[in-house]
C-alpha cells in the first residue's frame, strides 16, 4: 500500500512579522499533522498566533520557514482546495446571499444550471434558502456565518479552515451553530482545522484539541477527545466533558503564569 497523505502536515513552522520598528515572532516552532477526515481545534490565548497559523495554511501570508503541506502538496498560494472561513465576515456586501454563494462557482466556470443547484443545496443545508435575496448587512451575525460556511462548502474544498467562526455570537446561537456544523461536517467528511479561544467549543466539536501557548506560538499540549459521535448538546453537562475542559483550562492558565515552553508535539494519524 502506498503511503496515504495526511490532510495537513505542518513541520517546524515559523513566522516572523517584520514591521519598521521591530520583529514579532508570531509562531516559533509548530509541527502538527492532521489526519484525513478529522476535526482538529486549536485553542490558545488572544494574540498567540492562531489566525496567523491558519492564514499560512490557507496560503494568504508567507511563512518564514518550515513546511506546510495540504494533502501532500506544498502550500504556495491560496486556492479552492482549502476553504477558509475568516475571523470576520468576508461576504461581499454588494452581493446578496445567493450571489455570494454562487461567486466561487461562477469564476470557476460552473454551468449556470449546475451552479444554481449547488447554491440551493448548500443554502438549504445551512437553512438560509429563504434568505437568498437578502444582502449580508440585512442578516444577523449567526446567519452571516452560515452563509460564509455555505459559500465555502459550495466550491467543495478538500479541507476546511475556520478561524473563530462563532466568536462573535451569543452563547445560545453559538451552541446551535456548533450542532449545525457537526451535522454538516458529518455529512461532508472533510478535514477541519478549527480555531477558537473557547475551550468548551473545542472539546465539544473536536477529535483532537491542540493547545497553543502564549506568544510566540508553540504547541503546549495535544489532547484527543474520545467522545463518540454523533454528539449533542447534552455532552456539555457530562463529567468527562468537564474533565477535558479543566485539563485544557489548567494548561492555558499554567501558560499564563509561568510561560514554560514545551517542545512541540505531533498528532499522529
Amino acid at each position, binding site marked *: 500500500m502506498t503511503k496515504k497523505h495526511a490532510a495537513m502536515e505542518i513541520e517546524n513552522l515559523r513566522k516572523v512579522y517584520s514591521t519598521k520598528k521591530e520583529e514579532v515572532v508570531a509562531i516559533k516552532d509548530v509541527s502538527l499533522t492532521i489526519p484525513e477526515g478529522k476535526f482538529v481545534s486549536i485553542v490558545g490565548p488572544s494574540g498567540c498566533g492562531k489566525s496567523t497559523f491558519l492564514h499560512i495554511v*490557507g*496560503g*494568504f501570508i508567507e511563512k518564514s520557514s518550515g513546511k506546510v503541506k495540504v494533502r501532500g502538496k506544498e502550500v504556495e*498560494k*491560496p*486556492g*479552492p482546495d*482549502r*476553504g*477558509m472561513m*475568516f475571523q*470576520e465576515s*468576508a*461576504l*461581499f*456586501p*454588494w*452581493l446578496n446571499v445567493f450571489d455570494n454563494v454562487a*461567486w*466561487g462557482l461562477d*469564476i*470557476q466556470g460552473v454551468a449556470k444550471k449546475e451552479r444554481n443547484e449547488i447554491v440551493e443545496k448548500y443554502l438549504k443545508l445551512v437553512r438560509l434558502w429563504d434568505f437568498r435575496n437578502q*444582502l449580508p*448587512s440585512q442578516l444577523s451575525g449567526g446567519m452571516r456565518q452560515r452563509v460564509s460556511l455555505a*459559500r*465555502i462548502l459550495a*466550491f467543495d474544498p478538500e479541507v476546511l479552515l475556520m478561524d473563530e467562526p462563532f466568536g462573535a455570537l451569543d452563547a445560545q446561537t453559538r451552541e446551535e451553530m456548533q450542532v449545525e456544523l457537526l451535522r454538516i461536517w458529518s455529512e461532508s467528511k472533510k478535514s477541519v482545522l478549527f480555531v477558537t479561544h473557547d475551550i468548551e467549543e473545542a472539546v465539544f466539536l473536536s477529535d483532537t484539541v491542540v493547545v497553543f501557548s502564549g506568544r510566540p506560538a508553540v504547541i503546549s499540549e495535544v489532547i484527543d477527545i474520545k467522545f463518540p459521535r454523533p454528539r449533542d448538546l447534552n455532552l456539555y453537562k457530562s463529567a468527562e466533558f468537564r474533565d477535558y475542559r479543566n485539563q485544557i483550562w489548567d494548561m492555558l492558565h499554567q501558560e499564563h503564569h509561568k510561560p514554560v515552553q514545551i517542545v512541540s508535539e505531533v498528532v499522529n494519524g
Partner: protein
Amino acid sequence: MIKQIWNKVVDYQSIFILLIVWEVIAALGIMPERLFPSMFVVIGVAYDLAISPLLWDNLSVTMVRVLSGFTIAAVIGVPLGIMMSRFNLMNKLMQPMLSIGYPIPRVALYPILVFMLGIGSGSKIFLIVLECLFPIIINTYYGALRVNHIYVWASQNMGANHFNMFWKVLLPATAPSIFTGLRIALPLALIISILTEMISSTEGMGYLLSFMSSSLVQENVLASVMLIAILGYLMSVILDIIQKKFIFWH
C-alpha cells in the same frame, strides 16, 4: 405633494434667502438697476433663451465636451487608481506626477494645448480629462487602499485570477470612493469646458456666456449664469441617481 415642495424649499432655504435679498435690493433701487435687475427679469430672459435654439445648440456642444472628457478621465483614472493600490511600482511611478501635477493650474496649459490640438473640441476635451483625472485617481487610489484585504483573500480562496479580482472585487468594493471622485470631477469638467469656451470658441455655453456679456446687459449675463447653474445641478442629480443604483448596499 405640497409637503414635498415645502421640504425642498426648506432644503434650499439659503438660495431662497439670497434671492429674496436680491429682490429687495432690486426693488428698493439701492443699487443701479443696470447692475441689479430683478430676478423676475432674469428668469424671463433665461426662459426666452431656453426656448430658443441658441441655448440648445450651444448646450449640446458643451455637453459633448463635458461628457466625453469626464468619461475618458473615468475610464483611465479608475483602473489607474486601483492598480496603484495593488502594484507598488505603479504607485511609485504615479505619485510624483500626482503631487507635482496637482497644484499646477492646469488651465494655464490651455494655450499650449490649443497650439497642439487646435481651438476645436480636442484641446478642450484634453484639458477636461487632465483636470478630472486628479480627483478620480486620488479618490480611487485611497479608496482601493482601504478595501478590506479580507475580500481579496476570500476571492483568492475561491480561485479568483487578477481579472476576477479587479472586476468583481476591487471595483465594487472601491465604488463608494470612486463616486466621491466622480462627484468632484463632474463640476470641474463643466467649469473647464465653459472656461475654455470663453477663452476661445464660437460655440458652447462658455461662448454663449461671453456673447451675452458682450451686450453689457446684466440680465443677459445673469440668465446665462443661471442656466449654467441649473445644468450643473441637474448633472449632479443624475450622478446621484446613478450612484444610488450602484451602491445600494452601502
